[in-house]
């Protein structure tokens, strides 16, 4: 703590400039989202044609460096292990392409598409048509796929821990979007309200003196207007993202809390979407053997909230 005397006891500035670890220090990256623990960038990996997501957990200056490193490493590794397990067992999650737990970064497969939150917002703005109940498409089909996707994750013994509509993505285009992605991007992963505009960040990234070592993908067009939110946006595989709080557990309690968190997210972002969530629960219950008992547990969780009782 040699620098302790130099540092005034004031809160840090609003916009911390994060210096990324090697080898990304001089690479032009596009910031997609920032959370409390991690920064998420778009870049390319292994080949100049493979878009990917870089998730970086910067060191926390208020923690002891050794403890900080250990926590970062443990959390990043836990997330990567869960993702690899999911991928192995056939759950649609982004693949882990690269990892440096010591330095706090992980490279994930790029998922083309938008968050369920964005898709539902567009659906509401577009009139919110309840059609295709029997045919299993449209918004009902989407709800069913969400229920099945969550059910499958729980079935393999993983609880997401932060299941919100922003952490569910609808993959657009062909089933497996890996490698080449020529088309313009519609929406980016982990779209959140506080998101910064990509163009401003791109400029900031480009002003660094390092020569651009590869071409950035074309500028993303703004999210399509509500008119463009046709039913086609409601189709596509559900991909779960952000396993930063995921745990490997088979307890009904944890699974029910996952559903409860998702229910609250639905209620909070889409008033009137509670009817839709019933469809999620219905298909969840049918998706695997333990589903029914989780739904019963969910009744208990609803009464008391997310926090488990501290008895025993």
């Amino acid at each position: 703590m040699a620098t302790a005397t130099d540092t005034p006891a004031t809160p840090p500035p609003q916009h911390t400039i994060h210096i990324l670890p090697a080898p990304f220090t001089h690479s032009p990256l596009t910031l997609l989202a920032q959370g409390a623990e991690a920064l998420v960038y778009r870049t390319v990996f292994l080949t100049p044609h493979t878009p990917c997501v870089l998730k970086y957990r910067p060191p926390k200056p208020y923690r002891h460096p050794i403890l900080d490193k250990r926590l970062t490493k443990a959390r990043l590794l836990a997330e990567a292990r869960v993702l690899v397990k999911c991928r192995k067992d056939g759950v649609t999650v982004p693949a882990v392409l690269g990892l440096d737990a010591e330095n706090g970064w992980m490279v994930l497969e790029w998922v083309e598409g938008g968050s369920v939150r964005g898709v539902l917002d567009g659906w509401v703005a577009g009139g919110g048509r309840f059609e295709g109940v029997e045919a299993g498409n449209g918004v009902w089909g989407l709800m069913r796929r969400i229920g099945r996707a969550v059910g499958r994750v729980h079935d393999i013994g993983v609880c997401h821990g932060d299941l919100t509509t922003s952490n569910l993505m609808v993959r657009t285009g062909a089933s497996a979007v890996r490698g080449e992605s020529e088309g313009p991007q519609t929406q980016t992963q982990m779209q959140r309200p506080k998101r910064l505009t990509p163009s401003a960040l791109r400029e900031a990234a480009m002003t660094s003196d390092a020569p651009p070592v590869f071409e950035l993908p074309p500028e993303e067009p703004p999210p399509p207007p509500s008119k463009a939110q046709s039913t086609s946006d409601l189709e596509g595989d559900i991909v779960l993202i952000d396993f930063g709080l995921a745990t490997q557990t088979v307890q009904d309690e944890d699974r029910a809390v996952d559903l409860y968190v998702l229910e609250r997210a639905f209620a909070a972002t889409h008033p009137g979407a509670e009817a839709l969530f019933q469809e999620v629960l219905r298909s969840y219950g049918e998706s695997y053997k333990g589903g029914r008992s989780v739904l019963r547990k969910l009744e208990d969780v609803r009464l008391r909230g997310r926090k488990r009782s501290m008895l025993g």
Partner: protein
Amino acid sequence: MAAVRTFVLPHYPEYPIQIALFKDVTNAAFLRSQLLEANSDFDYAFIDASMILTPTHLLSPVFLSLHLHLTTRLKTRTPHSEIIFRLHPNNNIGESYRKFGISDTTTTLIAVRLSLTPDVTRESVAKHLGDVVEGTSVDVGERGEMLGEWGDVGLVRKVYKLGDGGGAKGKKGAKGVAIGGGVDERREMESVILGIMAIKGL
């Protein structure tokens, strides 16, 4: 002269990778003996091509090895041996060489050389490999398309313990997406394998 392709990894543009592919190799035993003698002229990663599924399957350990070398965290003695070590899901260097490295019976061979110093160029590698490898040089293609051409899906599946594939995904039975056949099967396997390599030993 052998056909050598130069690959530039994003984020490490200053260290190009030289990759060559040979089929009908007849002197694998000699090449292996040179590796065992640690002959400094044979500082390559010689990989049995039957164990490489896709170009990315090879580039990923190359990236990891280069990254660990530049941040001085290698587990093996050279960045080239690290490539072979990184390919294997376990932390056993000897086992990695037996599974992924050149063996006396190898007929299809991938040679990887990192240009860590300026004197290692595409020309120098092409000339040297052309002189020492007795086999037919195959152009790997601009994006390394040919690198997975000799990959043996069954062998790779076994090493990474990816179940027996197809409809019957081992004990998992009906649940989970059964990894289908064809190109998608390789891609799906590749995604899992990259993850396995990334988290190994940590």
